[in-house]
């Protein structure tokens, strides 16, 4: 006795004996762009975890005779400094590699903070409904009414730009979006039969929320997390640019751009390369999010 899948097409034929998650992986890896994104992501993670292995120079080492030297690939460039040096003679490539650590660490942890708060708030609002829902929605509206950058700048300016403060504040800035997303998703599945069935067999509210509803809206959350992480990286870069991120001499990509802006007419490379790093890593997360959306929503990708 064999069970025939309802939708038999090219992909599901291949994936017939695989688990759903393997099928998603299969769809993901069938595109070159995704593979490139994943490779770039792994490279960035490697740089963030083992910068000493990758960086050619000490990122803090100042060498004033070597200040504002052009990248090695230019005629006037200096051998060894592939991306040139900044106004204190520090190697830009090494600083970018070390900078990956701060950016990824802050953004990832901030994402976790907003994810946890937002998902719980959204689940509770959507599932309990009524007055709880109204209060949470009002809070969400209120916070979304603030221009995020202004909010974050003001709080960072108050509390000081320490690593923990940054993570908490950036995390708090993101929760309403998750809450909204999860609430909407919960509302759309709340009335479905399996939820009713779970309730009928006596499952408590917590159990229904976390064991039955949450897994069913997980794919939406995963896709959204990827985009949200890109947003966090952008926020971190902007804060560092405005001088409110992790403080120097710790290298941050936004901070490097800001330092380079003063010398932009004579040494454009100081600002240019960290910006490419920021754009690339954001692009990677957006691409992965896009592909995840298509992969987790087979109906769309088989049109």
């Amino acid at each position: 006795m064999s069970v025939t899948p309802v939708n038999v097409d090219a992909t599901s034929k291949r994936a017939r004996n695989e688990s759903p998650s393997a099928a998603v992986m299969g769809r993901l890896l069938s595109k070159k762009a995704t593979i490139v994104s994943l490779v770039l992501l792994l490279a960035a993670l490697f740089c963030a975890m083992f910068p000493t292995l990758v960086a050619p120079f000490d990122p803090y080492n100042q060498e004033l005779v070597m200040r504002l030297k052009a990248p090695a690939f230019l005629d006037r460039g200096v051998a060894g400094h592939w991306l040139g040096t900044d106004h204190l003679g520090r190697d830009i490539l090494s600083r970018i590699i070390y900078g990956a650590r701060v950016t990824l660490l802050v953004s990832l942890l901030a994402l976790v903070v907003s994810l946890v708060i937002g998902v719980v708030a959204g689940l509770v609002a959507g599932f309990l409904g009524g007055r709880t829902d109204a209060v949470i929605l009002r809070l969400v509206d209120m916070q979304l009414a603030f221009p995020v950058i202004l909010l974050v700048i003001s709080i960072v300016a108050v509390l000081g730009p320490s690593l923990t403060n940054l993570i908490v504040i950036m995390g708090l800035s993101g929760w309403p979006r998750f809450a909204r997303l999860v609430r909407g998703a919960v509302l759309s599945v709340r009335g479905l039969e399996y939820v009713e069935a779970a309730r009928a067999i006596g499952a408590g509210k917590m159990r229904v929320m976390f064991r039955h509803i949450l897994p069913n809206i997980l794919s939406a959350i995963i896709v959204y997390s990827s985009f949200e992480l890109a947003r966090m990286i952008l926020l971190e870069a902007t804060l560092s640019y405005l001088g409110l991120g992790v403080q120097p001499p710790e290298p941050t990509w936004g901070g490097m751009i800001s330092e380079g802006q003063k010398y932009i007419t004579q040494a454009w490379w100081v600002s240019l390369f960290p910006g490419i790093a920021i754009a690339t890593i954001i692009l990677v997360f957006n691409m992965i999010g896009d592909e995840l959306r298509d992969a987790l929503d087979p109906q769309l990708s088989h049109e």
Partner: protein
Amino acid sequence: MLQYIAKRIVLTIPVLFGILVATFMLTRLTGDPTDLALPSNATEEAREEFRKLHGLDQPIWFQFVRFTYHMVQGDFGTSIRFHEPALKLVMDRMGATTELALAAMAIAIIIGIPAGVLSAYRRNSFTDLNVRGITLLGQAVPSFYLGILSILFFAVWLRWFPTGGRGTWWHLVLPATTLALQIVALIARVTRSCMLDVLGQDYIRTARAKGLSESKVVWLHGLRNAFIPVLTVIGLQVGFLMGGVVVTETVFSWPGVGRLAVQAIYQRDFPLVQAVVFLFALIFVVVNLLVDLAYAALDPRIGYR
């Protein structure tokens, strides 16, 4: 309809009040502005006098009640740094900010919606991949970085545009485009995904089956139905735009509210920060209210509950 409008307006009041409380609390957490406003060798009497003058010696709840009372009358207090009414300072710069924001929004809509529609219609085609590529890139490049790059290329190297400041139309081009590119990407992206959903619907097949031209199917039946989420996103972008304005104005030395806000925050100029944040929030709430009402007008399925 009137009842619906009235209800939506009433619902914004607690939101506005919450914003007011948050703004007030926030700016009072920044520490004592006396230290910043007066020289470090000022006498204790001078400090006391300063606190008294600005009401900083009163209990916090009293400061809040007084603030609300004045605020309702349009009085946000006097800027500690500029010695002028905060509201006037903000309003003086609102014109520059509005000019920048409207120009950016216009550029974004004119480019974003057609790009998203075309990209969805010719899914996975060359156009789609290009639009998606540019969209992704536009979202990936931080606006301050884009601003610096455009200053470098168009102002420093090519000398086509000024590097910053406000004046002629030429001054507007770089900042407005910089600001727009961030929203273009979002609008195109949302238009694309909504159009994809809509184009897969039965009524689109029906429209085709009864022999409508493709352009009518796509632009009338398709876009009209995809438009509501797109409109929401445009409405929500007003908030984003206000954040973007803060950064863009800083990069291009544009004399608007955003730059004023950043300076006010650095200098702990409480009344000014309060005025800016509250006005920004007010604009955002009003725009969203209008978007909601436009919803009801555009989509007959949304009842006037």
